[in-house]
């Protein structure tokens, strides 16, 4: 892995947009939106997640990987070839931007899993996605100088050290078309100078951009470790991606309740509920206390069919939601939405602990 960094507290800006009809748009708008909130970041991190960008490879796991050196790349590719069918690999196109210096080597890989690999040592079948997660964990924790920044199908993360608008131009995002874009501008309070530490944080097709700090990180991390998630990167955002993977994908908990685990209602509210709802939320607090995200946060979490905005349960961070036709916008500030869509049908501020879930309309194939 690329060194061990202490956890870096940070303040931030986030912005996301989604077409519920699956219409794809290039990266100009999202860059414009996040750029408006320039003063919420300090130039030490910016990034984007984009869904729908690789229609020609939509059944492949698209790995975006940062390398410290050519040798690290060669070693990692040996591992990838051993674990996957590598259908295509190439450097991710970038352009020179004044403020972006000293980037790592950045490649992408389109991978398939050979069905024959999906058995463990005891001959038991292994879930393909668990297999991919394990490979990501292995590269990030065990291979020197390599870091997988995204690993989902038909999506990818683009991130680095710099202001988000500069990072966007560096990665030529105007050349990509996506139906969901999320973005992040970072304000870390010291300088890690590490590209992997920028947001979004991704696993499979989950991506998370995050404003705030998770004060419960210590226990969240230890809880996830029990389920074999290794949180070596010390970014608190990482735990959110793992939680949605664990709770929603692996344990089958509906998205809405997954959010209610992460930002659980207060006992005072639970005690006033009707008996059946009280049973639901009491059990959630009893069983998933270690998954409660405590401290100030607003997130935009996305996967290939949904974009979710979530605030902490006492709403210490801002989040505005806007709707225009099939478009849903979420951002730290309303102005960041108005900048790209002045004429909204509806606009409101998200409530504490209440998830805003935007999903692709039924029947929309992406």
């Amino acid at each position, binding site marked *: 892995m690329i060194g061990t960094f202490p956890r870096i*507290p940070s303040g931030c800006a986030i912005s996301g947009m989604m077409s519920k009809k699956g219409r794809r748009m290039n990266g100009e708008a999202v860059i414009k939106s996040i750029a408006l909130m320039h003063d919420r970041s300090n130039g030490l991190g910016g990034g984007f997640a984009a869904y729908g960008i690789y229609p020609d490879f939509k059944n492949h796991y698209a790995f975006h990987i940062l390398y410290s050196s050519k040798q690290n790349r060669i070693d990692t590719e040996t591992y990838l070839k051993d674990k996957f069918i590598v259908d295509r690999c190439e450097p991710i196109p970038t352009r020179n931007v004044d403020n972006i210096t000293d980037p790592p080597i950045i490649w992408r890989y389109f991978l398939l899993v050979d069905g024959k690999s999906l058995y463990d040592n005891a001959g038991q079948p292994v879930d393909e996605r668990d297999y991919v997660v394990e490979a990501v964990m292995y590269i990030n924790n065990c291979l020197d100088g390599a870091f997988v920044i995204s690993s989902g199908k038909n999506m990818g993360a683009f991130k680095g050290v710099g202001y988000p608008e500069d990072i966007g131009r560096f990665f030529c995002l105007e050349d990509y078309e996506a139906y969901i874009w999320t973005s992040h501008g970072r304000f870390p309070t010291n300088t890690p100078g590490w590209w992997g530490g920028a947001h979004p944080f991704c696993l499979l097709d989950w991506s998370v951009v995050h404003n705030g700090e998770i004060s419960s*990180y210590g226990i969240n991390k230890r809880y996830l470790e029990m389920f074999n998630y290794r949180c070596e990167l010390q970014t608190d955002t990482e735990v959110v991606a793992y939680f949605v993977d664990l709770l929603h994908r692996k344990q089958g908990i509906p998205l809405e309740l997954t959010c209610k685990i992460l930002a659980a209602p207060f006992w005072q509210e639970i005690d006033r509920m009707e008996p059946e709802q009280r049973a*639901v939320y009491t059990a959630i607090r*009893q069983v998933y206390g270690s998954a409660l995200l405590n401290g100030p946060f607003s997130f935009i979490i996305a996967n290939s069919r949904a974009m979710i905005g979530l605030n902490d349960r006492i709403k210490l961070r801002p989040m505005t939601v806007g709707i225009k036709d099939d478009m849903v916008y979420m951002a730290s500030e309303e102005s960041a939405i108005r900048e790209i869509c002045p004429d909204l049908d509806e606009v409101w501020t998200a409530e504490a602990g209440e998830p805003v879930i935007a999903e692709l309309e039924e029947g929309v194939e992406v």
Partner: protein
Amino acid sequence: MSVYLPAEFNVQIDHTLCRRCRRCVAECGFGTLSFKGDKVVADHKKCVACQRCVSTCPEAAINVVKNPLAYKENHHWTPEHIKNLHKQAATGGMLLTGGGNDKVYKSYFDHMVLDACQVTNPSIDPLREPMELRTYLGSKPDSLEFRYSENGEYKLKTKLNPQVKLDTPIVFSAMSYGAISLNAHKALASAAKECGILYNTGEGGLHKELYCYGENTIVQVASGRFGVNQEYLNRAAVVEIKCGQGAKPGIGGHLPGEKVNREVSQTRMIPEGSDAISPAPHHDIYSIEDLAQLIYAIKEATGYEKPVSVKIAAVHNVAAIASGIARAGADIIYLDGFRGGTGAAPTIIRDNVGIPIEIALAAVDDRLRKEGIRNKVSIIASGGIRSSADMAKAIALGADAVAVGTAALIAMGCRLCQKCYTGSCSWGIATQRPELVRRLNPDKAAQCLINMIRGWSLELKEILGALGVNAVESLRGSRERLRGIGLNETELNILGIKPAGR
């Protein structure tokens, strides 16, 4: 052969202040003071520094000081060793003591500091904002299942094992009726009810007058099975199998016959005046599968409606033992460190056997997590928890709740003279002598306990607020919020914390 043993303490009476009311003579449970001629005189040898006379003298005319008698200085043969040897030479018996291990072992609580938020993440003001301490003890599943109902709501599909609610993550430690007085038990029980927490009967049975506190009661099943029957088990909120005690790991309990008066005999369900012996071990537990058998015998007897706790002393191999207990079906593991108190224990055992709770707790929590079974059990940590700071640190190390025994006794008036085994407690706590028991007003003592729990809870809320979290589960096991000071690398490693500055 009797030996001359100098007094440990000197009772100083200011005869110019003394108004000869003789209250002190009556107050001393140890017979130290008497009225001779025209003044109070002290038999210094009998004084244990329980400070009852000092505290009750209306003229503040009494002071108790350490006897300045000097032994020849010797760092190896301390005065304590010399005194104990003389005692044994005279009696040929085992040295007996009460209270917890008071030796100068390192206190790890005193080498850990808590974190607080500054600027980059905010602290929370507990006076204004919600701050949740509610804690549930019981075995939790790894995941929940829900079903979507017609009316558009999610309903719970998973049936959880029994969970017991604590309004604040504290329980009172096991102290049996017999070791302490009925008034002390009443105080603990009613305070537990008022505070929404639990008290623990210890192994001495459950007095009928305390049946009404069942929802706040942990009943113990120890090797002697005193007072254990269907009703006893079913009155309780939690049933606890006592396998060990921090003050005397591997050693059983023994209530001498003279303390088994009529009332004690009723709750223990044994004849008056007979010794109540509950040796280690349980004779139906000689291996871990036997523990599982007893756990399920209790579950069968209580209709699977109550969590079953297993209390063990913190010993070297505690992590592996705890793992076995979790896998044997216990809902709660109650870990008692070597500072834990006792009504009576051989001094040599109390002072030399077992390990600190901080270390044991860290090792157990780690082990259970590594094995992926931490959710299966709640952990109660005890053994020398002195303050809300110790409690917060224990929770950060991984405890679901802490148990307090000695602290609760002190709140009720105990001065920690460590003579519980004599049955002469001047404060009416560790005694069955009616004239002494009467001194402890159960309502007033309960109020003291309630005040202490309230104070600790307020402090815990302040700590959580400073940490920027508003629910105790966000501190639980969050060792990231602890730092070590003055600990070596191995100690830090075992505790799973970083040194201050990292």
